[in-house]
């Protein structure tokens, strides 16, 4: 058993729902008890979808057990088919139904429906959401694709690719697809099929007709792309175009696969990040200490972009995606770090509290942690929140995506800097410590009281922040001086002074010690 407060990923059948919901003409019959319908709200509320996910839940109850749950499944599948007339059907079990072993695949086959029926085996007690999405896409493509000798490839000499991996409830998938489609079109490459987002089963059948595949999110499209390569000899891209450098490398890779000149897309001219990063007012970004956490693709990309395109110092890198831990470990090693691979958000919180970064690039979970710790944060990866589906166009990928990264990552820091300038005038009646930073709404005074009743996360933080016994004491003067330091570097200054004093056996920290430590650790 694993003790969990918040989870980074849902169960694997939610991954399957993300595929079904992304597509048109697919219906998923899920053998599940009534409560499992909560998953609908992920799509209707968080993503604000205007239609119900195409999922029928059998809603079995305790009184059905041992009598007719299999029958209930068959009836639900038949009625769902009649009502929704899908072009392909997915059938499977949620965690509870997995235990009663009704075999939805076999039951659905017995119905002899006139459309492809894909039976999903998604072990709920071993696997998670992204894996479930990857498996579902793979099995669905396999079920719809023609035999290799029956593939109808157009002979017009126009290079064609598929864009694979964008799903419902994906972090900025909606906009990434549009940005990358624009990019490959600039190269004169035609987009054959985008899947699963917006595709029909008949579109999946056309996938093998393309020359190669663009794997947007390896977590989701990796399995499918590998199979397509084996079965149809379609090569796949390996670069994920997040950041300017990676987008250029991606353009080169696509151009090479398509046999075209990359110039058209490289000189695209929409990338503002390089100039914005070089412009003088970005100087203050230099060496900002950032902590990066997310799914493997976004975490690795963000760490690289942070280092190479923002001149930040990456002080921590991690992922909750154990399946892709190797990539993250390699990327961390290259940066002289040890990757944090965990799906326990308390571990992540502990590391953030230890490292005291100046910026956190993480998921919604880290956003909460950063808020509690008073550290600026930008969200770079799923799990998603309603805020991650902005009304405006906001891709993460491609040149426009890099522009979005610049704005989203710099904004919380810039606000922090302004607060810093304001706090120079400490006695101002509006700008005092208790007022808190306006951009970290309620994170200090109000937030602190709201979260106060001995919350789990708070405890963990307090435990970390509390000084171990035998630590140096602070003189009143030093405490006062410390308060003059801007709030967002104050914890670091305190920590440094304490460490400096402890290492030198200084019993009381004075104003002198504070500045000694500053000189000692200053960069």
């Amino acid at each position: 058993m694993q003790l969990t407060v918040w989870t980074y990923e849902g169960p694997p059948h939610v991954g399957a729902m993300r595929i079904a919901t992304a597509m048109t003409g697919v219906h998923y019959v899920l053998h599940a008890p009534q409560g499992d319908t909560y998953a609908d709200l992920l799509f209707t509320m968080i993503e604000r979808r205007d239609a119900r996910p195409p999922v029928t839940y059998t809603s079995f109850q305790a009184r059905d057990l041992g009598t007719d749950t299999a029958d209930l499944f068959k009836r639900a599948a038949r009625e769902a088919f009649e009502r929704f007339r899908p072009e392909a059907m997915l059938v499977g079990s949620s965690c509870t139904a997995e235990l009663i072993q009704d075999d939805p695949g076999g039951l659905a086959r017995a119905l002899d429906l006139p459309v492809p029926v894909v039976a999903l085996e998604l072990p709920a007690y071993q696997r998670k959401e992204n894996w479930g999405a990857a498996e579902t896409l793979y099995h669905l493509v396999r079920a719809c694709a023609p035999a290799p000798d029956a593939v109808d490839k157009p002979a017009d000499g126009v290079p064609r690719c598929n864009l694979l991996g964008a799903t419902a409830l994906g972090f900025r998938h909606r906009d990434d697809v549009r940005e990358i489609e624009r990019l490959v079109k600039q190269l004169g490459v035609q987009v054959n099929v985008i899947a699963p987002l917006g595709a029909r089963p008949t579109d999946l059948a056309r996938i093998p007709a393309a020359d190669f595949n663009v794997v947007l999110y390896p977590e989701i499209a990796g399995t499918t792309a590998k199979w397509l390569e084996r079965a149809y000899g379609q090569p796949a891209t390996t670069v994920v175009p997040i950041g300017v450098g990676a987008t250029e490398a991606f353009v080169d890779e696509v151009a090479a696969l398509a046999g075209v000149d990359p110039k058209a897309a490289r000189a695209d001219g929409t990338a503002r990040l390089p100039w914005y990063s070089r412009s003088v007012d970005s100087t203050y970004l230099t060496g900002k200490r950032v902590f990066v956490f997310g799914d493997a693709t976004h975490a690795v990309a963000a760490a690289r972009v942070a280092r190479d395109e923002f001149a930040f110092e990456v002080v921590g890198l991690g992922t909750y995606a154990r399946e892709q831990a190797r990539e993250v470990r390699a990327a961390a090693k290259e940066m002289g770090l040890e990757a944090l691979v965990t799906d326990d958000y308390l571990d992540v919180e502990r590391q953030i509290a230890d490292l005291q970064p100046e910026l956190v690039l993480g998921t919604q979970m880290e956003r909460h942690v950063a808020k509690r710790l008073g550290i600026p944060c930008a969200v770079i990866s799923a799990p998603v929140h309603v805020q991650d589906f902005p009304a405006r166009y906001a891709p993460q990928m491609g040149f426009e995506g890099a522009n979005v990264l610049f704005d989203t990552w710099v904004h919380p820091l810039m606000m922090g800097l302004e607060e810093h300038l304001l706090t120079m005038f400490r006695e101002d009646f509006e700008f005092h410590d208790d007022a808190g930073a306006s951009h970290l709404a309620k994170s200090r005074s109000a937030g602190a009281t709201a979260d106060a009743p001995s919350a789990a996360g708070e405890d963990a933080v307090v435990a970390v922040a509390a000084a171990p016994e035998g630590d140096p004491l602070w003189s009143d003067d030093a405490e006062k001086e410390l308060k003059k330091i801007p709030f967002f570097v104050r914890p670091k200054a305190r920590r440094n002074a304490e460490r400096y004093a402890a290492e030198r056996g200084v019993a009381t920290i004075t104003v002198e010690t504070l500045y000694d430590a500053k000189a000692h650790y200053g960069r």
Partner: protein
Amino acid sequence: MTAVATRTGDPATCDAPEIRVERGQREVFCGLTGIIWLHRKIQDAFFLVVGSRTCAHLMQSAAGVMIFAEPRFATAIMEERDLAGMADQNEELDRIVERLLERRPDIKLLFLVGSCPSEIIKLDLSRAAERLSTRHLPDVRVLNYSGSGIETTFTQGEDRCLAALVPEMPAARDDVPRLLVAGALADVVEDQLLRTFEALGLGPVDVLPPRRAGALPPVGRNTRVLLAQPFLAETARALERRGARHLPAPFPVGVEGTRGWLEAAAAAFGIAAERVAAVTESGRARAATALAHYRDELAGKRVFFFPDSQLELPLARFLARELGMIPVEVGTPYLHRGHLADELALLPRETVLVEGQDVDRQLERCRAAAPDLVVCGLGLANPLEAEGVTTKWSIELLFTPLQGFEQAGDLAELFARPLRRRARLKV
């Protein structure tokens, strides 16, 4: 998938609307969701769900939309090795509880909450709770109940939780009649109602659940139970087993419901209805003023309820009788004929009452009925809005203080706002 029409058998309610029973796909939360308000209500209790990743994901998805503070709940996620017998589940559970209590020394009451998977594999949480209680008392008491979706729907989770508390309640020692108000209410509402009882000279009054686990009220044969919520079938049964007597009453929603509810308690304590009328006069007058603002807006509007919290009947009764709305169909996951007898009698006879759910059929009926306002869960609201239907999230009705005279206007506002918004929007 199946629909059976039944007429309530009791001749006293033969004027009450007909109740259809429907079975099919449900679009409701399971009982685990009750933890989201219960963990805020009983402030030194912790809820440990023994379940799957789905349970944890449900809790955070449902809570994520609704609360932002740190939770006093968690999930012990069962993994393959637990199910394959490679790990002793009881040892695993003990280990997790140890870790939890170490980190949270403020916990005085720990609920082990059963889920669909734990029920299916027949993990005996009552024995686990007993074992853990023995180990951790007097610091921590460990209890268990099931919030599984195969047995409980949404608010029934609270019912099971309160029912689990009943055997722990001390026996009432004297022969003084006591009033016990059962059902979690927002603190502000609870305080208002308690003040009213005090003004009536009615007491002693206890509440279940108490705000602190150590303050469980006594129960005995002189206890009179007044239900504050319509979903407490098991709790009432458990209290009755301890000798308490249930006071039939409408629920304290709206002016009429609140008055009837107070009168039922007053009558049981020998206090005249005139006294209730006098004590509640100013409250009723304020409620009337507040409701008057909304009557023009809401009167004649047709409302359709999808099943959610079992609060549907009292709400429909309030909307019909105090605001002149027309309940077209009122769906409810479960309908306790006994506890809701007063509500059934007050509902307009032509109201279609549906117990249970077959969501696709219900959506068809809803579209055909073309109501002015649909009260439904989060999975249905946006899709219906996209079809041009005005909706009210039912979940908010459970998280907003709405009982009592002072909240009647707020309650009306919840139904009026979506309609007003739609009328204002020019996009």
